[in-house]
């Protein structure tokens, strides 16, 4: 038997082909699991923030997580259609899906001064003559998006508890259109479009940090209690072992953890604007439930 250079080359080609096929088969065999991400401002921003995290979770958990950006108002419908088994939503959407579909809580995001919780405020422009909450009756008011826990629900509840009925006591009230509704509220008050508005504390904090606004631009007329912020959850029929692995991966995330996106190593938490994850219990959402009942909002809405 003779071994020529040509035969060695042929053997090398065959072995390489077998190895490549096996490797790609392994990748293809990874179970595909979809995570529905609620769009906060718009789909582009959601992708930018959460693609690295999704990639990291895939590597860590050993399944192929696929990111599905979802508009807030479509979230429940698409979840019910079985489009995704895992969810990343604000606390109100979690609460609705928990009530109606027995969603399982995984881990909650920590961001800003209050960690896994945030609150809302009622603001007016400094120098506008509106310095106290009892002066806002008869004014033009703006709320954040209707399914925003700290841009709408918490402030609406605060107003009701303070003896102000938004349906009767304002000259008018509105919700800004399009994307970046939360920032539009703050700028709307700053530039005189609205007399008073709801504002999330996290947005005020972030916009101040970024130099977009100054603390002295606004009067904070009232502040809501702190309630849980965005959270990961799983469908009740999701694989319990996968649920545990995903929870563990989220809770163990550190600021130094990276994922590869388009050939670039990206810091996962930094890209997602998150400080880390914390394990909350469903009872932590009770305050929000009480608010939703008082405001007559889903999942407790009565007609």
């Amino acid at each position, binding site marked *: 038997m003779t071994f020529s250079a040509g035969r060695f080359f042929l053997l090398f080609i065959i072995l390489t082909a077998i190895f490549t096929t096996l490797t790609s088969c392994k990748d293809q065999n990874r179970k595909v699991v979809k995570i529905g991400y609620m769009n906060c401002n718009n789909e582009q921003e959601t992708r930018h923030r959460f693609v690295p995290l999704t990639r990291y979770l895939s590597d860590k958990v050993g399944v192929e997580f696929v990111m599905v950006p979802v508009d807030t108002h479509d979230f429940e419908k698409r979840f019910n259609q079985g489009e995704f088994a895992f969810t990343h939503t604000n606390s109100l959407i979690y609460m609705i899906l928990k009530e109606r579909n027995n969603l399982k809580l995984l881990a909650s995001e920590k961001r800003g001064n*209050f960690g*896994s*919780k945030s609150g809302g405020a009622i603001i007016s422009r400094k120098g506008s003559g509106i310095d106290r909450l009892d002066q806002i009756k008869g004014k033009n008011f703006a709320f954040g998006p209707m399914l925003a826990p700290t841009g709408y629900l918490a402030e609406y509840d605060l107003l009701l508890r303070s003896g102000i009925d938004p349906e009767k006591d304002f000259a008018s009230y509105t919700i800004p259109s399009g994307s970046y509704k939360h920032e539009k509220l703050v700028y709307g008050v700053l530039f005189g479009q609205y007399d008073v508005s709801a504002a999330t504390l996290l947005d*005020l904090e972030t916009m*101040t*940090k970024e130099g977009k606004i*100054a*603390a002295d631009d606004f009067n904070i007329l009232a502040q809501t209690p702190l309630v849980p912020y965005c959270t990961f959850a799983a469908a009740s029929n999701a694989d319990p072992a996968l649920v545990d692995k995903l929870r563990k991966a989220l809770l163990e995330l550190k600021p130094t953890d990276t994922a590869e996106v388009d050939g670039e190593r990206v810091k996962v938490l930094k890209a997602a604007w998150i400080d880390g994850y*914390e*394990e909350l219990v469903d009872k932590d959402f009770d305050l929000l439930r009480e608010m939703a009942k008082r405001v007559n909002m889903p999942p407790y809405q009565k007609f």
Partner: protein
Amino acid sequence: MKFDRFDKILISLLAIAAVALLAYTAQSFPAKTTAIESRSMERELASQARVGLLEKLYSPVTVALQNGQYQEALLKLEEVNIRYPGEAHGFILKGEILYRMGVLDGAAAGFIRGIKLSGDYIDKNSPFSKRDIIAILVEKSLPPAQTAYKNSHSNPALKENLSNLNYLKSRLAGGCE
């Protein structure tokens, strides 16, 4: 004993030298004391300048804090932090604001970051001392934090909070880094 003229000259020279030495020593002692005093003075001046500067820089925050406008105080603190990130005084003020807002785990985290940068904040003789408020925080938060961690060992946030409170407790007891 009889002194000749040469002896008298020697004695005179010795006397002059002794007087000169005394005079020199007398002159040099107060001079050395002044140098030590001036070093203490410099330290005191630097310390007072720091107190004055921090009070001035953070006065919008402390005024809002004293008026009970906690959210405004946090926003004003963000503004100061843009210019002076990582300053111990900022972390301590954040701890105090969060404590007053009832966000006790965040308060403990803030105090720790400040104390690790400067032990002045736990020293009862320092003008910046926050020892009393930290002691109350530890007393109030430690028992529930221990119970919470016992009930959920797998929760890293509870573990971190308990570890923060234990660290503050050890610093209050006189322990150091």
